[in-house]
């Protein structure tokens, strides 16, 4: 059943092309096609996950050329959870977008391309192939950001495109250096040849490492190369910001983890301790800067965006610490953050549909007007802060333990400070929702979904709130708490692979 790997990538892309063709004749074919393809994607990634649990690493040779000459697709304990996450979150976004829009076949075509690209980055075993899928992901993401109603979203999309392309090109240049040093692009083959054919501390290998990591850091949106991200999240339609915040940076962070763990391997960090130092410090800076900037924001989407900068700093710090404990924490936090942040963006979208505002000040008294969404938002916020037993706590716990284990006390301290800052920016929202009296509304008699506060124009226009959208937010909240109980399960899943990585 290794065919599931290739189908998981090709399926959504073929569905996108079919939607394009069918869209010439039929108007409303986008959503059903996307639903069909995404449900199939959930099934396929489920099969991949099950196979990986049963048999360990799965590999598929494209077009029958044996790797390392041919391109290899790989599913293992690191990629399988991310693949399942992509499929499940995509399905949730589809339910949300049914009512919230954007409408039209074009949106769903680009949506399917993005799903295919994300699955490709996750499941590829070839470094150049990863570049191509990163760019498919990027192209679809730029186009989706620009689907907002106003031209402001086009500016955000264009800025994202320029910065993202520079990042991907740096990655490509790094791949070129790695190829020159070793003569191969296959990840498994590269990890063998690095250190034997090319010394770890040769200039070519260090340049390759630096460029690949710098390129991926742009895609992950680490501080200070995060500048595209708040604008992109803020001005894209709600469904798109859920999708992108939950998956695009996540997959880039996964790609960085994959390159660090299975291409350069811990032996590279042993040979070049400087590289590790720099990456850990960059990630720590990102954690602090991201959470500090988040505290300063008034717009809920910008606040959540800066929060992502800090949370991804944690994930990258975990991968850079490079011990078993920290990497397990990094993977848990990677998956957990996607669910929590996607849920928070969905909740913010529903709240904007109810109140017509994205300003944190206007959240006052929301608990009375929308108790379910406010409650789910509060649960997700506390999970993000790291209140046990939620998944946010488990991830940070493992990362902090890993930091202490490797003697990097600074990272443990940064984690603590950032947890306090995270509490600071979420607590003020929760305080307003539950304890502040709502400001008197001049047009309180107007029908709720069309109420606007007059001052802040909402970019996407209002849309009705469907039970499905609320269900998504509640499910995300439940999952954020429930996943916390499966921390040890994830650890035991990753264990065989990590033992192999760290045994070298």
């Amino acid at each position, binding site marked *: 059943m290794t065919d599931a790997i290739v189908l998981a990538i090709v399926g959504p892309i073929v569905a996108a092309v079919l939607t394009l063709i069918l869209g010439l004749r039929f108007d409303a074919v986008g959503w059903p096609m996307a639903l069909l393809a995404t449900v199939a994607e959930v099934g396929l990634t489920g099969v991949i996950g099950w196979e990986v649990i049963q048999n360990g690493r799965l590999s598929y040779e494209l077009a029958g050329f044996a790797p390392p000459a041919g391109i290899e697709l790989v599913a293992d304990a690191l990629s399988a959870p991310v693949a399942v996450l992509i499929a499940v979150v995509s399905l949730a976004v589809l339910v949300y977008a049914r009512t919230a829009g954007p409408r039209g076949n074009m949106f769903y075509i680009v949506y399917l391309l993005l799903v295919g690209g994300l699955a490709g980055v996750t499941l590829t075993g070839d470094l*150049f192939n990863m*570049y*191509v899928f990163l*760019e498919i992901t*990027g*192209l679809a993401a*730029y*186009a989706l950001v*620009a689907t907002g109603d*106003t*031209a*402001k979203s*086009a*500016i955000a*999309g*264009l800025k994202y*495109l*320029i910065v993202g*392309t*520079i990042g991907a*090109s740096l990655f*490509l*240049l790094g791949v*070129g250096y790695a*190829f*020159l040093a070793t003569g191969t*692009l296959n990840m498994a083959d590269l990890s063998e040849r690095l250190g034997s054919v090319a010394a770890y501390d040769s200039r070519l290998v260090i340049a390759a490492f630096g460029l690949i990591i710098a390129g991926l850091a742009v895609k992950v949106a680490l501080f200070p190369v995060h500048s595209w991200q708040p604008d992109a999240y803020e001005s894209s339609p709600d469904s798109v910001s859920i999708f992108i915040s939950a998956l695009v940076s996540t997959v880039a962070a996964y790609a960085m983890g994959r390159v660090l763990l299975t291409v350069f391997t811990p032996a590279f960090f042993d040979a070049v301790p400087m590289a590790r130092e720099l990456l850990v410090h960059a990630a720590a800076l990102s954690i602090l800067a991201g959470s500090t900037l988040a505290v300063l924001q008034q717009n809920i989407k910008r606040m959540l965006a800066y929060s992502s900068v800090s949370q991804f700093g944690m994930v990258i710090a975990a991968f850079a610490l490079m011990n078993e404990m920290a990497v397990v924490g990094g993977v848990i936090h990677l998956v957990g953050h996607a669910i929590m942040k996607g849920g928070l963006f969905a909740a913010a979208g529903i709240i904007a549909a109810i109140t017509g505002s994205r300003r944190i000040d206007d959240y006052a008294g929301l608990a009375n007007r929308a108790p379910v969404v406010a409650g789910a938002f509060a649960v997700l916020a506390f999970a993000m802060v790291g209140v046990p037993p939620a998944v946010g706590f488990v991830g940070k716990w493992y990362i902090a333990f890993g930091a202490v284990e490797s003697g990097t006390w600074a990272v443990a301290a940064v984690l603590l400070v950032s947890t306090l800052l995270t509490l600071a920016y979420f607590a003020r929202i929760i305080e307003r929702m539950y304890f502040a009296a709502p400001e008197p509304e001049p047009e309180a008699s107007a029908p709720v979904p069309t109420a606007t506060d007059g001052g802040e*124009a909402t970019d996407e226009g209002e849309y009705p709130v469907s039970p499905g959208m609320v269900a998504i937010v509640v499910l995300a909240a439940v999952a954020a708490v429930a996943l916390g109980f499966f921390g040890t399960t994830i650890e035991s899943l990753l264990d065989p692979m990590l033992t192999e990585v760290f045994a070298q």
Partner: protein
Amino acid sequence: MMQAIPELLLTRYNYIGAFLLIAGGLYLVVSDRNFVKKVIGMNLFQTGIFLFFITAAFIEMGDTTGAPPVITDGVDLYVSPLPHVLILTAIVVGVSLTAVALTLIIRIYREYGTLREDVLREMDTDD
């Protein structure tokens, strides 16, 4: 050392060209305020990387230089075909990126009548 620099210029001019394209492109992206020029800079940056890859594929043994990687009678030494194939893919990616970028630029220009980043930012703070 003084002789090394002209020699470097004569033998490694492709790499110098690639470096100039990459640096110049990056400078244009960062410094210019016009979005069209930023996209041009992005294209130069990518072209520099393409040139770097293609140059790296070149091979020379004694007096014979590598032939283009298309099998021909009587030719034994070919340049490495893999970077060419990779860059062919990368060029396609670059073209589609430029297409999306230009689409967005047209939309921005229709809405605001300008493509200067600083003017757009002022307009944004005005509303």
